[in-house]
Structure formats: C-alpha cells, structure tokens
C-alpha cells in the first residue's frame, strides 16, 4: 500500500518525464487502434463486397472448375452439372443456411461497335439470384433480369467503356464446349453500379435459359451453386462440413476465403505491418522507460539506501520501481485508448477516402468508395494490457540494479 503511494508520488514528482514517456506509449496505442480499425474496416468492406456481389459465403462446383477459375483461364462449360435434389438438400441442411442460387459462368468476349472486351457471362436463375446476391439493389438504369428474355445487365463501368445505355445492342462471343465461339446478340436491359470494381467491369448478367441453350447445354445446367449463410463467420467451418458430406459426388465446397486467397494474404500482410510498426513504437517507449528508470535509480540512491536500512527487502524495492513503470504504462495506455477511441469514432462515422492513398481497385481489392473503420473493444483491452506489460518488463533490469545496491554505499552515496 505504501509502496504504491510512493510509486505514484514519484510519478507525479517527475511529471515532465512521466508525461513524455507516457506520450510515446500513447502514440503507439493510438497508431495501433487506428490501424486495427482501418484494417478491420477495409477487410470487412472488402469481404462484404466480395460476398454480396461476386463470391458468396460458400460455393459448390467441381474441383476442375475451381482450379480453372482461380487461374483466370477460360471457364470450362464441360464442368457444368445439373444440380440434383440430394445435393441441394445437403446444402440446405448446412448450419446457418439462408439461400442458394445456381449460376452458369461462361467466358466470353463482349463486343459493341468495333471493340471487344473479355468478360464473364454469369447466367443466373432470376428467381433465386436476389436471395444470395445484392446486385439487383444497385440498378442505376433499366430493369434487372426477370424471366427468360435475352437482355443483359452490365456494370456501369463496362457500359462506360462501350458508351452503352439501356436499350443499346451488344454482341457476345461465348466460349462454348468446343470449336468457335458462339455469337449471341441482344440489348442492354439494365445497368448496375456496385461497389465491387470487378463486377462493375468484367461481368455480364443474363438469364440462364438463353445462355445455356446458346452453348447447347440443358437449361437446368449450372457450374456453381452459390450459397448464402446467415453469418459470414460460419462460412469456413460450414464449407468444410459440406465438403466432407459431398465427398465422392464429384463436387466440392469452399468458402469465400478460399476463393479470395489474395485478399486473405493481403489481410495477413496488413496485420503484420501493423504489428511491426507497433513493435517499433513500443521499442522506443521501452527504451524511454529504461532510461527513466535508470535515472530514477541514480537520483534516488540515498532514498533506496534508507529504505534498505529500514528493512525493506530487495523484492519490495523492485516493486516500487515496477509499480512506477506500470503507472507510466497505464497512463500512456489510458491516454492512448481515449484518443484512440476518438480517432476510431471518426473513422467509423465519417470514414476516410482511400483515393488519396492508393487505387485499391487496381490492386484487386473490391472497394470502390470510402472506407469506414470498425470498432473492436477487445483491441482496446489487449493494447492497454500489452503496453503495461511492456513498461513493466522494461523496468525490471534497472529496478533490480537499484535494489541490489549495497545499503552502506547507497546511504553514503559513493
């Protein structure tokens, strides 16, 4: 109790020093909270934009199809299948299941006027597509796909490239089973603007019937079944469960994280970078604490000598120093968490525009507009505890050095 009082008063006595070191630690905390909020904001938006428009929580297809799709090769129409009821029932039985929709993805070249552009035609089942994907909510012109009409829905960016409006004609060259591409003509039925750059530019949506029959597939054919769950966190484990159930059927199931390996590794790199910079900050803080504690030990040699003469053990004297360091850590951590909370609040409410920093779309990150930070209360607790622990660890060596001084020398200050 008295040791604590002494530690606290010593902190106050050297206010300037205490504040300086606490500020460095606070800076580390603020930086960490900012980065952590930004990172989780970016990754949250990224994965939402992925899951809502492109690759859902779980997708089911043949292994060969997945391999080709990941390599950005021409998609193999031969890998299509007609989903049967047992497979669909298995999917519906997945924990947290919300909806499913079959799609037929076909590689194609989009042509209008004299230009051609490689795209992916996603032939959809208009009845269920909207239960899995939100693309339909982002219509900026025309109508979304209903029934079997051959009209297509394209992204705003693709429309911009070809200078197309609703009602304009297009030509698609579909890469079918074999031989030359199959030509398909029609009109632009709708234009969407989704916050996923890839979907805005490279994907053409149309009804399944005209697309399937153009490349001579049964109209019930699909090459992926897209599955939405109630909750993104279940995706990885449920994809595994489903994959095991479907063994032997020729089909495989995988989560959006497996589909987006690049983004997952980007996430890991982002965190690694955050931790690295955090470590640098804390190193500076730790060096500050060590030097402050050494100074304190030198200044207070006589005081320490007196405490030893009064019968305090070395352990108790170490405690005074450690408590002081913990105090600096706690002050720094508290200031950092407080200011960090303000920063995170602004990030969450107003977001920041990433255009100023880098073109995420070009990097392959599906974010088109502002990035909003995310709250993570657990990070506050973790970083606070961590800063205190670092401060205490940094004080141990100087504390033992001070405590082990011979009381006779210490009192005479030789």
């Amino acid at each position, binding site marked *: *109790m*008295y040791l604590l*009082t*002494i530690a606290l*008063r*010593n902190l*106050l*006595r050297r206010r300037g020093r205490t504040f300086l070191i606490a500020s460095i630690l606070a800076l580390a905390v603020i930086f960490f909270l900012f980065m952590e909020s930004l990172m989780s904001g970016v990754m949250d938006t990224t994965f939402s934009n992925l899951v809502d428009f492109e690759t859902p929580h779980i997708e089911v297809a043949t292994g060969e199809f997945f391999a080709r799709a990941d390599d950005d090769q021409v998609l193999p129409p031969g890998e299509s299948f007609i989903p049967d009821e047992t497979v669909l029932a298995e999917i519906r039985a997945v924990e947290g299941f919300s909806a499913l929709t079959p799609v037929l993805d076909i590689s194609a070249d989009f042509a209008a006027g004299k230009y051609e552009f490689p795209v992916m035609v996603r032939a959809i089942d208009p009845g269920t597509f909207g239960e899995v994907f939100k693309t339909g909510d982002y219509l900026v012109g025309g109508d979304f796909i209903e029934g079997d009409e051959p009209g297509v829905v394209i992204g705003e960016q693709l429309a911009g490239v070809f200078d197309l409006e609703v009602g304009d004609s297009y030509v698609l060259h579909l890469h079918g089973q074999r031989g030359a591409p199959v030509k398909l003509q029609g009109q632009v039925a709708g234009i969407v603007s989704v916050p996923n750059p890839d979907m805005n530019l490279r994907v053409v949506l149309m009804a399944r019937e005209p697309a399937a029959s153009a490349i001579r597939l049964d109209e019930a054919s699909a090459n992926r079944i897209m599955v939405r769950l109630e909750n993104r966190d279940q995706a990885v484990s449920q994809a595994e469960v489903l994959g095991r159930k479907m063994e032997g059927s020729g089909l495989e199931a995988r989560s959006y994280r497996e589909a987006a390996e690049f983004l997952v590794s980007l996430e890991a790199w982002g965190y690694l970078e955050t931790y690295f910079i955090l470590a640098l900050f804390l190193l500076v803080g730790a060096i500050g604490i060590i030097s402050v504690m050494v100074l304190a030990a030198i200044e207070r040699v*006589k*005081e320490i*000598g*007196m*405490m*030893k*003469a*009064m*019968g*305090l*053990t*070395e352990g108790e004297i170490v405690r005074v120093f450690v408590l002081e360091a913990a105090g600096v850590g706690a002050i720094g951590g508290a200031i950092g968490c407080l200011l960090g909370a303000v920063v995170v609040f602004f990030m969450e409410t107003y977001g920041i525009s990433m255009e100023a920093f880098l073109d995420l779309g070009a990097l392959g990150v599906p974010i088109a507009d502002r990035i909003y930070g995310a709250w993570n209360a657990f990070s506050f607790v973790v970083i606070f505890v961590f800063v205190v622990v670092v401060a205490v660890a940094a004080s141990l060596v100087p504390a033992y050095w001070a405590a082990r001084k*011979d*009381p*006779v020398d210490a*009192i*005479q200050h030789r």
Partner: protein
Amino acid sequence: MALLEMERVEKIYGQGEVQVLALRGVDLEIEEGEFATVFGPSGSGKTTLLNLIGALDKPTGGTVKLNGCEIGQMSKNELAGLRRKDIGFIFQSYNLIPVLSAYENVEFALTIARKDRSREKKTQKVKDILRRVGLGDMMHRRPNQLSGGQKQRVAVARALVKEPRLILADEPTANLDSETSREVLEIMLRMNRELNTTFIFSTHDPMVMEYARRLLEIRDGMISRDERRS
C-alpha cells in the same frame, strides 16, 4: 545477556592492492537502555562501527551478536527483517523519503515494521510520537518544507515509532547549528529516559559528546577509551 556483543571485530574495505583497515579488533558490549556515544575524528571508523552494529554490513573478522544472533551468519533477507523490527537508523543527511509527508514518513516506518496494528492505533501512535519531538503542527509538510532541525526530528520520530530495541544515529547533528543540535539531542535523551530505548550515536563534536552517558572514543579503528558517566 547484553543487547550487543562484539568480539575482535575487524573490517577491511576493498580487495587486492588498496585495502583499508577500518576497524582493527573491536571488543564491545552494550546493555539495554544505554545512551552511548562513539566519539572520534573523521575517518576513525565511527560509521563503519555503526553499520556493523546495525546489521547493514558484515564484519570481515570477529563476531557481532545482536540479541544473541550472530549477524555474520544471517542472509540478506534475515538482516533486513532484523533491521525492520529491532533497529532504527538516524543519519547525518536525514534521508527522509521526499515524496512522503512528515506524518507519512513516520507511518511508513511503523507500517513496514509492525503489520499487526489497527489503523486507529497506528494513527494515534504516529501523532503521539510527532508531538513528542515537537512537530505536532507540521505533520503534513513534505521534507522540502522543513528546516534541517525539523527534518532530523522527523528522522528521530521515524526511528522511534516502531519501538526498536536499538537506535543508531550516525553524526545526527553534523548538519545542524549548535542550538538545533542541542534540541535534537535533548529529545533523544528524553526518549531514552521515557521509553528506555537504547541509543548509540556517533560524533566528532566535543559539544555533543557532553550528552553521552557512556563515552566510547575511537581512534584508527580501535576503541581507545570507554568511560561511563552519570
């Protein structure tokens, strides 16, 4: 049994080439309740002697027994425990804890020495001792708001409060003017009479020497005179 028994005590400082023989064969017995002065010029070995008596240091030869316990045989923590309970120190440079008030400095010493006392009793005891040394109205000042004499009185109160068997004062008046010195010595003498606490203090000042009831004169690390007065 005497409170303190020293036999052929030697203390050599430094190893190797530069060795200082600070004490060369000291034999000494001190009884409970004595008020003894170690008198000698600077460098004669007074501080060394008091440090050995107070279990702050160990002799390089001979034996020092406090309460029958030989300090050469004790571990660091055992020595700390002994000092905590049974020995009070007063130094020339006061050595108060600067961040604690007069009251807190005294209470701190009591708290670490005797953990069993209730809070009210402790408060009572601390206030009482501070009043006795004449600091009743300055209890809440920090050391930097006190004069040298006042600081030394706090140090006296701090040493006394835990009711140790022995108080060691190493040149307690060296930094004080003669009038203040007298006041502090009067207080120590009165405490010795009222509480029967054993005091051993060192000095090189002949004026201070007059207060001694037993005079131990030390020269070149040896006790050259041992005389009792009344």
